[in-house]
């Protein structure tokens, strides 16, 4: 088959909602778009282990400690599923990590915020994972097979994450005055960054055109954000938390909430490296990657050694 014919085959598959598999011919721009998106997604899972890891040693009960550690472990696992999906496109994990360290690959902005109290662990599970899940459920239908399969697995495993976060918030809202204060404070700090997780408004989203055409992206940023707000506001009210948005109002006509303006200057500031924890997160990752180098080298050397013995 000729190259032109194969591209048509690619387009036919996309039209017919068939998945694209790694060995299928695909436009180079599609491949690069996926590498950028999947590796960013993988890095987000991995960097996301840090703010939550910040509280494992201080979790307030044995039950809470186990749940939190199991959850962070899942995030690591999800990072692995996603790295593997990206690897099928011909990029190595080495290379992806290098791009992260050189600042060429990004991770979700949300993890540049600090976890200051135990309530932040609740807020991350409930709001941040809640937002991520809305996005990931939509991505199950993405056109690239390995990415779609990773999303199915991830969504299945993540279903407990949001519940555990909400449970922490609910428990604290039933607790002492100090606990309630902590919970509301966490809500106030995490609400807006969570809304920013969905990315710029549809009119200002630079990569969306191709992503829609290729069915990598199936729902727009604003659609997903709306979905998240509508389900979360009710959950907040049930446990007595206020939403830190004075302009939030139910819109009967659209059967959804209208919200106040998002401070995109903050979003830009954090994404360009000036969030509270950008430096810390990167330094941590680089430091421990370096610390592990001698172990990986030893494992490689051992492999060579036993292969010459056999």
């Amino acid at each position, binding site marked *: 088959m000729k190259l032109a014919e194969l591209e048509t085959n690619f387009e036919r598959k996309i039209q017919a909602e068939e998945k694209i598999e790694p060995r299928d011919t695909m436009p180079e721009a599609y491949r690069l778009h996926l590498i950028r998106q999947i590796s960013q997604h993988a890095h987000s899972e991995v960097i996301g282990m840090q703010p939550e890891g910040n509280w*494992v040693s201080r979790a307030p009960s044995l039950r809470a400690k186990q749940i939190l550690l199991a959850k*962070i472990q899942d995030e690591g696992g999800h990072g692995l599923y996603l790295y593997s999906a990206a690897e099928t496109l011909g990029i190595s994990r080495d290379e992806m990590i290098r791009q992260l360290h050189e600042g060429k690959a990004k991770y979700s902005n949300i993890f540049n915020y600090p976890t200051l109290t135990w309530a932040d662990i609740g807020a991350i599970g409930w709001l941040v994972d809640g937002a991520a899940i809305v996005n990931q459920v939509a991505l199950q239908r993405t056109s690239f097979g390995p990415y779609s399969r990773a999303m199915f697995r991830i969504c299945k495993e993540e279903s407990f994450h949001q519940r555990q976060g909400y449970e922490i918030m609910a428990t604290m809202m039933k607790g002492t005055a100090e606990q309630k204060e902590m919970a509301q404070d966490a809500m106030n700090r995490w609400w807006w960054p969570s809304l920013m997780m969905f990315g710029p408004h549809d009119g200002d989203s630079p990569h969306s055109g191709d992503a829609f055409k290729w069915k990598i992206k199936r729902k727009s940023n604003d659609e997903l954000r709306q979905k998240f707000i509508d389900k979360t506001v009710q959950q907040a009210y049930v446990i007595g938390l206020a939403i830190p948005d004075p302009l939030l109002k139910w819109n009967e006509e659209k059967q959804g909430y209208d919200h106040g303006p998002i401070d995109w200057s903050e979003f830009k500031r954090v994404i360009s490296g000036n969030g509270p924890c950008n430096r810390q997160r990167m330094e941590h990752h680089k430091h421990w990657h370096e610390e592990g180098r001698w172990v990986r080298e030893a494992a490689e050397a051992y492999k060579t050694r036993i292969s010459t013995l056999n």
Partner: protein
Amino acid sequence: MNMELKEALQKFLLRLGDNALIQGQRLCEWCSRAPMLEEDIALSNLALDHIGRAQVLLDYAGQTYGAAKSADELAFRRSERQYYNFLMAEMPIGNFAYTIAKQLYLSAYEELLYEVLSQSTDTNLSAISLKAIKEARYHFSHAADWCVRLGLGTPESHDKLADAINELWAYTDEFFEMSDCDLLLLQHGIAPDQEVIKKHWLDKIGKVFMRAGFTMPSEVYQHHGSRQGIHTEHLGHLLCEMQFLQRAHPEASW
């Protein structure tokens, strides 16, 4: 059960529970810091096994008090001198080789210990032990694999592990100390003869060292103390961090 025996059992259960808890707490420190993402997940699994075991053991220990205590009360409201975990367990995680050496010594011991305890006349303890054996067997296999890899890997990995093995050796004899409480429990068929475990343990460790290219460490001064609740300075800091929320908000539930 008479008072003396009950107290001995309580101390023994606290020792088992504290060993699981403190090891688990230390292993948690590897979260987001392991040499490979896969190993991060593996170490979290070890930590989860330990914390889960601590919960069950401390829960049982709590039932031996006049007014029953919960596992969380025991984990988060006791101070340094009331902890009975081995000094080895509270040692910092160090580098990866140091953690592997700790894991090797402790998991080899735990595998042997829980094998004997699965035959304990105390049926609660034997039931707990049946699950713990499987976990400890896997933990030992994980540590032994890494010992061989690091031992036969690069000169750097060999030296790092050799340092760890030798340094931690000074905290191994304490595992096998027969205190009055151990003697009493042995008479009742509840707890094992540590001398017997020691023989098997030396054999088990020796075999791994042989495969990994190490010799048994030379005899050094052996530190004791945990049977009396005398610890290294490391434990206080660990507890400080672990117990922070429960201590800062004593009336709160989480």
